[in-house]
């Protein structure tokens, strides 16, 4: 399977790569597609933990983003992830935040 696809439905976000002739197909290999979704959830959770958020797959169709107090929001694809994450945690999720980077670098060096 192509590592760029993995989602069924009318998804138009670039990270899912649209199935068009000559680009990618997504109507085969369902197991791989689910595996890719699980992988996405895993990686996204690693990032979201820094903001006190978690993400879970919902029926292989959407994702549920939640705070520690249970406030949650359903998102269609990863393109909607960050605006929703910022709404839920009430602060900007900035990958160029010096403290955030420093914390991640410490974790890597362990």
């Amino acid at each position, binding site marked *: 399977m192509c590592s*760029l696809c993995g989602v069924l439905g009318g998804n138009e976000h670039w990270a899912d790569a649209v199935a068009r002739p000559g680009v990618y197909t997504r109507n085969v290999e369902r197991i791989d597609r689910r595996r890719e979704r699980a992988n996405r959830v895993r990686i996204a959770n690693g990032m979201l933990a820094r903001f006190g958020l978690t993400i879970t797959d919902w029926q292989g169709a959407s994702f549920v983003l939640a705070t520690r107090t249970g406030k949650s929001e359903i998102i269609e694809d*990863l393109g909607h992830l960050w605006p929703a994450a910022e709404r839920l945690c009430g602060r*900007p999720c900035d990958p160029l935040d010096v403290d955030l980077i420093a914390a991640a670098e410490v974790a890597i060096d362990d």
Partner: protein
Amino acid sequence: MTEPQIPLLTPINLLTGFLGSGKTTLLARLLADPALSDAAVLINEFGEVGLDHHLVERIDDTMVLLQSGCLCCTVRGELADAIKDLHSKRERGLVPPFRRIVVESTGLADPFPVLSTIKSDPVLRHHFRPGNVITTVDAVNGLRQLGSYVESNRQAAVADRLVVTKADLAPAADMSGLVEKLRGINPDAPLLTATDPAFDVADLVDENLSLRAAALQSTSGFYCEAPAQLATADGGVHQSAVTSFVMIVERAIDWTAFGIWLTMLLNRHGDRVLRVKGILNIAGEERPVAIHGVQHLVHTPVHMERWPDEDRRSRIVFIVDGLDVELLKRSFEAFALDRSSVGDGAVPKRSLQERQSSS
């Protein structure tokens, strides 16, 4: 039936350039050129291009057919409506089946909203896609404009093709200064000179260079033209905050981790990331993947047919406006690489993801 001639997604090229940079002159040339005989061109005013002698048929108030076969329209109101109108007329057979659209933007416009419109409009995005952005830069005034106007910098930065106009009027020293400046802002867009006898209009709209991987022969190993690696600022021209840099990544990239990082970056800083362009070595993939983004918009990634050479490292060009380059590189290192799924010895033993799942 005319339908088979119509591409699945009709490309929309954007012609931009600062006030007085020769946009209209280039446009007049485009309109008469057989290379655009299958195009519809959206312009601001009929009057300014002077179409009368090319005119074949007036379709309605806003649309005329030219001798070259090119369809020319003026935009009244919203651009999206004008494009939808064209699409509707094409479907109904009222206009020739054009296979590309060229949009002229005003001299002071930031080109990004046009691209964004094409990608976000619920109708347009299923029928059209953004094509090359063509930016004209005036050899006489260009350097000064780039030094003083943000719009001018942005137009140059998002360009897929840079066209230097009035080169015959500028002294050679000015010209080389301008080229250097443009290379600093946009290292990888092919630079064409409008007065060059070899200048071919077809090169402007041709996407072979940037998108069709099979055509990739660049010796630089990049899927576009070689990004000129500029020497760091030696106190010279550095008035603008627009900078470009190339990031070379040794390790195979995890597509998902990269995607999450890039969406996060663009969500926060999209208006300042003028361009992201790169060839990525994706973990688990034989072939490289080309990515191409303009501000908040990322084009559908393309699987290239093969690597251009032996070099298997990922190369990403960023053109940013006022972002801290070092911080961006650190952020990429810290977040965009999935460290848990790679098994080679260079990888730290405990990754962020593992921490998360084991805690």
